[in-house]
């Protein structure tokens, strides 16, 4: 009897459970997927601009005329608010469906705002469980919303174009691979300071113009392209991109090399508090307009190597000097000290110690090829 009663209750409960809906059901057509987000300062408030792909304008999505990509396939919405979520709330008021940040790939922040400090913005982003850590944060010259208005036609959605650009170029070690996850981790870590890709918007695309240097949560400086590549040599042993120098003998003409591999070796002399960063760069010559320079001879090859070593070391000195002036350790020296000299680390006030440290950079450039031309 009793067993039967329990069985019928079980059947009843399981039947009833079919009638229950789902609290968190959210149909995909009832979402507005934000693919890119731009954040600007608006007086003492924030202005956010979101880029939302228009599904019917995307090729292969059934009916409707498919657009040619670029700005035709997306729509921008913008609103201001006292903080990030207040601004999102105000954007939501203009929209028919629920904003969703699960597909957010790009966060563009204006330099003005970055220099003011990003503590509140990164907090809001990190707190949102939908936001991925693998998205790309960028700092832009001027207005951030302008970067979202750029209209590259090569991909259907501009965001995809930009993230492809960032992914490919950072894989080739020409841009820094700094995602939101890295930014958040580097901001909180007392031993290092973050760098972020720095861009400038044009009409058709955005232009990578270097890296923005942060001291904790605040942007304090920015480096141009070549300085950024040198910084990448010094920081991670990444190879950067092409460099051009004058002829080693001082005659008119130019010489361009492309680094193929880079290696960074850091040594630290605890007693003298001296860091030595040795960078080994294997490069090939791409272009030579120096008359009379014959690359066949070992002496001239050595002269070319020497010229580039001087060029890099000169740049590196300036970069290091600027980092020390900003008291921002973007060279990853702090983690090294903490990891391998923990007793010393415990006694140090790192920003101060870094700014006063003796940091020597030496380059070892090796020309490994000169293309299809013999001389």
């Amino acid at each position, binding site marked *: 009897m009793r067993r039967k009663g329990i069985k019928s209750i079980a059947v009843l409960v399981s039947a009833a459970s079919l009638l229950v809906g789902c609290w968190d059901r959210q149909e995909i057509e009832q979402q507005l997927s934000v693919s890119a987000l731009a954040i600007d300062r608006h007086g003492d408030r924030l202005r956010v601009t979101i880029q939302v792909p228009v599904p019917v304008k995307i090729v292969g999505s059934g009916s409707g005329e498919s657009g040619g990509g670029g700005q035709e396939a997306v729509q921008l919405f913008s609103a201001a608010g006292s903080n990030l979520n207040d601004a999102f709330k105000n954007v939501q008021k203009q929209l028919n469906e629920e904003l969703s940040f699960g597909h957010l790939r790009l966060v563009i922040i204006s330099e003005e705002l970055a220099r003011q400090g990003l503590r509140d913005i990164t907090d809001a982003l990190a707190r949102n469980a939908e936001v991925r850590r693998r998205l790309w944060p960028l700092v832009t010259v001027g207005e951030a919303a302008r970067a979202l208005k750029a209209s590259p036609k090569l991909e259907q959605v501009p965001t995809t174009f930009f993230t492809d650009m960032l992914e490919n170029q950072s894989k080739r070690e020409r841009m820094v691979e700094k995602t939101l996850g890295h930014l958040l981790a580097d901001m909180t870590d007392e031993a290092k300071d973050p760098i972020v890709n720095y861009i400038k918007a044009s009409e058709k695309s955005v232009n990578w113009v270097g890296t923005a240097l942060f001291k904790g949560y605040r942007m304090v400086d920015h480096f141009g392209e070549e300085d950024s590549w040198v910084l990448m040599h010094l920081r991670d042993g990444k190879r950067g991109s092409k460099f051009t120098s004058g002829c080693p003998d001082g005659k008119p003409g130019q010489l361009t090399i492309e680094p193929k591999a880079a290696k960074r070796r850091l040594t630290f002399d605890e007693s003298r508090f001296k860091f030595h960063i040795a960078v080994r760069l294997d490069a090939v010559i791409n272009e030579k307009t120096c008359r009379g320079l014959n690359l066949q001879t070992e002496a001239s090859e050595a002269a070319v190597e020497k010229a580039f070593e001087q060029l890099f070391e000169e740049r590196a000195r300036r970069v290091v000097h600027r980092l020390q002036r900003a008291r921002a350790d973007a060279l990853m020296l702090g*983690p090294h000290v903490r990891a391998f000299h923990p007793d010393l680390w415990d006694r140090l006030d790192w920003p101060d110690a870094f700014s006063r440290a003796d940091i020597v950079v030496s380059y070892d450039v090796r020309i490994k090829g000169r293309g299809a031309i013999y001389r």
Partner: protein
Amino acid sequence: MSRQTGQGMTAHQKQTTQTAAGEKVISFWQSMTYVSNTILGVSVLTLPRDLAATTKSDAFSAIIAAALFTMVVVWLFTRLGQRFPGLTLVGYAQRLLAARSNRKLGRWLSLPLLMMFAVWWICVVAVVIRIFGEVQRSAVFPETPLWFMVGSMLLTGAFVARSRADVIGRLNEFLFPLIIIPLLLIGLSSLTDVEWTNVLPLMHMGWKSFLLGTLSAFFAYQGVSVVSIAMASYQQPQKALQAHVAGIGLVMILYILVTVSTIGVFGYSEVQRLMWPTLELVKTAPGIIFERVEAGFLAIWVVAVFTTVANLLTAIVHLISEYFAIGENGQPVLIIGLAVAVFMIAMWPSDVQETFEWARMVGLAGAWGAATVTPVLFLLAKVRGRGREAEGN
């Protein structure tokens, strides 16, 4: 010889405790998975944060130290189980606490001890399902009410709680790879993103932070005491120690992998700020096939929580029904009562913060119990010479 005494004990025990598990059904492999699955639950999501807060970069020594401590505890339980083959905690606690002639006294004296175990296990289940609910709420189901997530997990566990020992053994054996393999993959795939300077220096911390770290890591191993019930059903109790130690060791390796990856990827200062660091690691992990694996990870993690809840609930039901001689017919009522109690405790903390405080309290109580009750039981058995004398040493 030993087999004979074993059977004699079982028959003898049936007189006093009515429903003790007599059949030897749990295999060696099953007992190992039983230990691993019971331990692996919600704490794998929060362990990196607790350790980053206490031991900073040097998390793995605390994990190993806590595992060694757990192994000592489980060694005591295993030896007890081997001394009293076929008997559960309920059976041998009664024998240990009073003279042979005075069974009634033993029965009464063991009651507070057994209730302590039962209440603590109930609290562990409650905390586990509550944290489970909090994770689901903050990560994937923001609109779903908490009682539903807590209740549905509890209901699923309660359905299993009446099962016979062989069912529990097979359940754990079957679900084990489902839990372990994805966790291993997540840990391993994240290793490529680890900045090794984040996990150094090693062995650079004070004793205080090491002990605090070991204590919080020990919270992540709680629940091994269920072997005191399950061991009575082992096919090869003489090999139980190897199985138990292997089960703990496996979890230890997994914990080290997950914690080192998490701290290595984020750095300890960021990990301290994260609510569910391991989940955050999954969200950051480079996708192998899919770009976003956290939904899949959570689905698998549900299984890990389920095995913890099911194993603990089964142990509670067994303990109570054995002591009070509750038969097949009474068990549903017992389970319903238990489920209501667990549900109420689970829903009691008002927010996540309070839940974590409860979890800490339950963990502390467990550590305290493991450090006092288990050795006392073991010493009683040794000093009073109870149980089978022919111990395999």
